[in-house]
């Protein structure tokens, strides 16, 4: 009886984080729902107990249904039949099981039949689903489109679509086009107002759309005729029940093969507007993307977990030279590093998710009543942290997923290169994670502002104020040294950038990574203080690894002249 929640102590630890109490208070607003809904919690403890029980259900469905289906789904894949997507049979079964378990609308309010759970718990669910089948996580995880609808659409639109998401209908976000990938401002799909029918009409083409034939699609389209940039774009909802969109083809991909990546043709498809015109990219896609990036961080963490477990199992069972290969130092070192990276991804992921939860929930509250000065300050504080941490989480988790999957094959040796073991699928699946929802390079672009504005440094200083146990004290002192290194290189890069434009750009990834390593190390230190037996070893391993990486990057920066910028042009 595999249960991906019960078998994962690290995941369970994050549900018990002290910030969860504040998150629940904000999410439940004095537990007023308890009078109206028989499944609403009475108090903080009751809510936490419900979260745990729901995550246990997710863990059960993942272990018993989704994971056993993953290989078949990878082989079978989806098809286009009569202009629509037909999922692999395993995918159909996965969706059925999750819907029987009532896991749609996890974060949506109860008035839309949702479970009203925090983003943190949704990320946990996503992580488990991805561990079972990363490609399937795309389909299921897209329910977070509903969060954007919930935040920005009118009550009428919310009442129409959100209960359907809660009932298990799937979503899609139709953003990219053949000539608009990373540069979404170039989107050309045309939306024109149909006065007689009272709807918008969509015409044009979308490409690389995950789950493009989903029931409810958020579409980025050009409502302002004659415009060419982001300011002419709006966000609309297309309802599959209305018809008007054909799936032209499904891409043949390296990995996540169960997830249909569609090319769509819109032919007078009716749609309704979400929020204000012209704010499509500037406001709503940014919100969508932040949620999606957190989703990919969760997906990546789940993949690392799966790849690490596959490698560990193989290393324990495979014998060479008369003993299991895990007994060889070269193998066990790899495994320990894989474990540390997985725990590190998770630490950063849930730290970020908690920040997102607090600020999102305060935002929701601010729509109903004006916030107290203290709450406003709290919202601003966590909003900034969430913005700063989201690209870090996405970048680190997705890069680590690739590294862990790579090492997983390495531990399997020649067998890992064959199709016989799951590690080859995990390796293929991981490869997209540092590409979609913004490549690592684009996460750096988002994160570098927080290097400059000091978001990371301020948070590192806050972490430094935490008191440490004897066991972690030396590491905490080390991290203070590393923070000083960070400050020094940031200063160097900023001052040289004034001389030579492009110097900061050139070093931006190195700077962002240094900040990330220090931040992750601090979060792990806290975990090691609380649960020494579980976390002290991986924390030591990670801090050593971080020290090496920071030293290397700092040395590169300090050795680098402004003329280096030209070298790489």
């Amino acid at each position, binding site marked *: 009886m595999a249960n991906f929640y019960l078998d994962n102590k690290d995941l369970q630890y994050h549900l018990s984080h002290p910030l969860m109490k504040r998150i629940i208070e904000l999410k439940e607003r004095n537990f007023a729902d308890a009078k109206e809904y*028989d*499944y609403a919690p009475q108090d903080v403890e009751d809510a936490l107990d419900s979260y745990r*029980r729901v995550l246990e259900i997710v863990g059960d469905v993942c272990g*018993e*249904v989704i994971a056993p289906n993953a290989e078949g789904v990878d082989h079978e894949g989806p098809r286009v039949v009569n202009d629509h997507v037909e999922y692999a049979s395993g995918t159909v079964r996965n969706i059925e*099981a999750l819907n*029987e*378990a*009532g*896991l749609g609308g996890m974060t949506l309010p109860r008035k839309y039949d949702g479970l009203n759970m925090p983003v943190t718990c949704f990320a946990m669910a996503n992580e488990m689903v991805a561990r079972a089948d990363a490609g399937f996580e795309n389909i299921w995880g897209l329910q977070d489109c509903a969060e954007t609808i919930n935040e920005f659409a009118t009550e009428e639109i919310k009442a129409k679509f959100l209960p359907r998401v809660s009932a298990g209908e799937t979503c899609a976000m139709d953003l990219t086009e053949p000539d608009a990938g990373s540069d979404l401002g170039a989107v050309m799909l045309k939306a024109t107002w149909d006065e007689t029918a009272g709807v918008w009409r969509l015409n044009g083409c979308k490409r690389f759309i995950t789950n493009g034939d989903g029931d409810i699609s958020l579409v980025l389209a050009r409502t302002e005729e004659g415009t060419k940039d982001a300011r002419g774009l709006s966000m609309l909802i297309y309802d599959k029940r209305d018809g008007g969109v054909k799936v032209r083809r499904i891409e043949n991909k390296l990995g996540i093969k169960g997830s249909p990546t569609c090319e769509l043709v819109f032919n007078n498809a009716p749609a309704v507007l979400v929020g204000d015109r012209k704010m499509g990219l500037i406001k709503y896609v940014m919100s969508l993307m932040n949620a999606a990036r957190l989703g990919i961080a969760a997906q990546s963490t789940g993949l690392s977990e799966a790849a690490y477990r596959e490698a560990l199992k193989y290393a324990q069972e495979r014998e060479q030279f008369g003993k299991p290969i895990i007994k060889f130092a070269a193998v066990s070192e790899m495994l320990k590093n894989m474990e540390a990276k997985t725990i590190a991804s998770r630490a950063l992921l849930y730290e970020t998710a908690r920040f997102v939860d607090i600020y999102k929930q305060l935002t929701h509250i601010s729509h109903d009543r004006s916030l107290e000065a203290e709450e406003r300050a709290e919202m601003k504080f966590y909003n900034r942290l969430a913005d700063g941490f989201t690209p870090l989480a996405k970048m680190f988790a997705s890069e680590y997923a690739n590294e862990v999957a790579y090492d997983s094959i390495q531990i399997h040796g020649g067998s890992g290169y064959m199709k016989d073991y799951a590690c080859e699928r995990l390796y293929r699946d991981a490869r997209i994670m540092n590409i979609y929802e913004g490549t690592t390079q684009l996460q750096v672009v988002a994160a570098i502002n927080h290097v400059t504005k000091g978001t990371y440094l301020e948070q590192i200083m806050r972490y430094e104020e935490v008191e440490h146990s004897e066991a972690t004290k030396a590491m905490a002192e080390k991290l203070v040294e590393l923070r000083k290194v960070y400050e020094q290189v940031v200063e160097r890069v900023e001052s040289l950038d004034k001389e030579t434009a492009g110097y900061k750009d050139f070093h931006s990834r190195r700077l962002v990574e240094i900040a990330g390593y220090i931040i992750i190390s601090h979060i792990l230190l806290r975990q090691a203080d609380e649960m020494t037996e579980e976390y002290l070893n991986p924390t030591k391993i990670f801090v050593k690894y971080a020290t090496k990486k920071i030293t290397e990057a700092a040395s590169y920066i300090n050795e680098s002249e402004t003329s280096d910028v030209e070298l790489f042009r």
Partner: protein
Amino acid sequence: MAKQVPDTRNVGKDAMTPEGTVNRAALAAIFNPEDLNALEMALQLKDRVGNATVHILTMGPQRAADIIREAMFRGADGGYLLSGREFAGSDTLATSYALACALRKINPDIIVAGRQAIDGDTAQVGPQVAEKLDLPQVTYAEELVDVKEGEITIKRRLERGTEVVVSPLPAVITVNSSAKECRPRNAKRVMKYKYALATSELAEAEHNRKAFVEERDYLHIIEFSATDVNPDPEQLGLAGSPTKVKKIENVVFQAKEAKTLTAEDKDIEALMQELIASHTLG
């Protein structure tokens, strides 16, 4: 009807007591697997008929209320716990008698149960209940084909194929493990029913919980004692159980029963012939 059983699929060395009875403390208590198949069939019946309720009846100690809660998490509307010292030591005859007494009181339209429990493997209780209540029975049910007023159509899994039968209602149906697996727990139902308590549990609950459950009827698992179901005391528990265990022996496979074969075709062929001849295969 469902039973809480020790998880005999994960047996360790402490599974049996020196007296030869099952060491319940060493084994996790679980929902009997085929009873879960039965629950799924009952829930499918409810899905089809619409205006129906599914209740679990189980006989056992207080902690057997766990499987009633489990069933409620998966879709059952409620349940009955038949509990009391009088029922202790029941064999299949006494069990089916006690259950039949409770069923007379509950008076359901359809009774669905698993084919057999993994602790006893007798497959007798379902059919015995049917006999005692003078109801038709459909055993080895694999699929609910149809249900309409006063009549149910069931596909049965037999040794050499399947058979579709129509039975008048009420009836007793016992379900095979080859039937559809039970649906998972449902998130909202778990949150709604997690505090459900049987009467004796409620009496022991701490003050706040007690008040909470008492305000909500749907959280109350009905508990029947022996006197609640008007039985003949002579037919209950140990007194009503003609089955007597004479002796329990440990079977230890010995090396002399092993055979060494070469990988050659003729050796394998000979073994196949032998196994077919002894009806181990085929």
